[in-house]
């Protein structure tokens, strides 16, 4: 066993590790897009207080927010085949990546639902009433009056959540996904130099988080009125 840490190796491993960046980005984008779409559904269920469904949504959101994403991932991994085998669908040969994508989308849905719900709830009822009084229909009032205002409230929280989702993807390797961290460990097993790989991955996460944060701050300034 040679040196504890060799900075040259960080750069030597970088190409191999960063070649897996697509996996990480795929998980982030699918989970954010899927999560946002599902989040809208959940938020609608909660805002319109649909009977039964509302209770289920509260239960679901509380569960997802109250348990570690790593456990959710494994629950999806073990439970989904059992559930689907009830309706005679066999997914035992599925790529593990699909399970990761599904569980991260389901995870993000709960967070997005809360962001969307609280943003829409923060728009005063008077706004909807005013819209109705000038003859807008329910949907028009939502689309033209409420959602644009809700968007301004939701945007910063959305940005924070996307950065959070990016960091959460670092756990996908525990299911055996060969993402950047998985690659770093594979290199570590082969060469006995695991720290250098970790540092390379850390550098990626630092750069990506800073970039996303700055990007969202910039977009917020451009998009939102009265935000300085």
């Amino acid at each position, binding site marked *: *066993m040679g040196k*504890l840490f060799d900075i040259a190796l960080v750069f030597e491993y970088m190409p191999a590790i960063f070649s897996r960046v697509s996996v990480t980005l795929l998980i982030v984008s699918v989970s954010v897009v899927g999560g946002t779409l599902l989040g809208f559904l959940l938020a609608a269920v909660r805002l319109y207080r649909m009977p039964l469904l509302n209770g289920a949504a509260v239960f679901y959101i*509380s*569960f997802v*927010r*109250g*348990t*570690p*994403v*790593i*456990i*959710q991932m*494994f*629950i999806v991994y*073990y*439970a989904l085949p*059992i559930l689907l085998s009830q309706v005679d669908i066999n997914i035992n040969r599925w790529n593990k990546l699909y399970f990761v994508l599904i569980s991260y989308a389901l995870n993000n849905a709960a967070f997005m639902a809360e962001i969307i719900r609280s943003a829409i709830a923060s728009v005063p009822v008077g706004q909807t009433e005013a819209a109705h009084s000038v003859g807008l229909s329910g949907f028009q009032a939502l689309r033209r009056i409420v959602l644009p205002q809700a968007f301004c409230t939701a945007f910063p929280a959305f940005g924070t959540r996307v950065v959070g989702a990016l*960091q*959460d993807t*670092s*756990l996908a390797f*525990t299911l055996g996904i060969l993402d950047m*961290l998985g690659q770093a460990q594979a290199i570590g097993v082969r060469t006995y130099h*695991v*720290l250098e790989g*970790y*540092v390379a*991955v*850390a550098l990626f*996460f*630092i*750069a*990506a*988080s*800073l970039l996303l*944060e700055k990007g969202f701050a910039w977009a917020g300034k451009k998009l939102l009125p009265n935000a300085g």
Partner: protein
Amino acid sequence: MTFDASYILVSLKVALRYLHVTLLLSVIPLLAGIALGTPIAVCRKFRMRFTSQAAGVLIPTLRGIPLVLYVLILNFLILKPLDMLAQHYAWADRLRMMNSIHIGIVAMSAYATVTISETMRSALNSVPDGQYEACFSVGLTRGQALRRIVMPQALAFAVPVLCNNFIGLIKGSSIVYVIAILDVLNGAMSSAQINYRFLEAYIAAALIYWVLCISVERASWLLERRLRRHRAELTTRG
């Protein structure tokens, strides 16, 4: 493989035996984070020389690193040098005075310090500058102003966020399973190693984390209400 709910109870019993480990791994980092993060936030608030610049660069950088990397990197950084020393001096086996739990606590604390220093910074920024000016005008020193006027107000702002951080730490503590610490998650898993009921074991672990997080959320709500009571008085009178 079918699903059998009775195995959840079996795993639950085993996992609960390791509840204290999960609590240790989240409470100590929370306290360490507050103890170390607050001075960092104060340094940045008052723009103290060197420290504030260093923190201004380090904190946003370190915030980008996921918790699992803190755990993996610190585990390596703490264990490997000890290992090398042990080899060099031909100590028997590898050094075992460093328990994995301690490494987990150190890693979680490092992560918590970074997160909580940001919480405290935004809490300090939530107090208007006029409060300091008012303090100085009646002759309070900066330390007095901070301790007697600003901190109590900042704390009311910080408590809900700190509770959120705490929930994040409780959930995050499950990650230490990558360095083989027997916490709630690994405890539940250890029961599944015997009966192969992995799904039930994960559900059992999830239930424990869920109850913990809901309790903290509830406590946060009560605490917040208590801290807000003076503020409510002010607005009704004002």
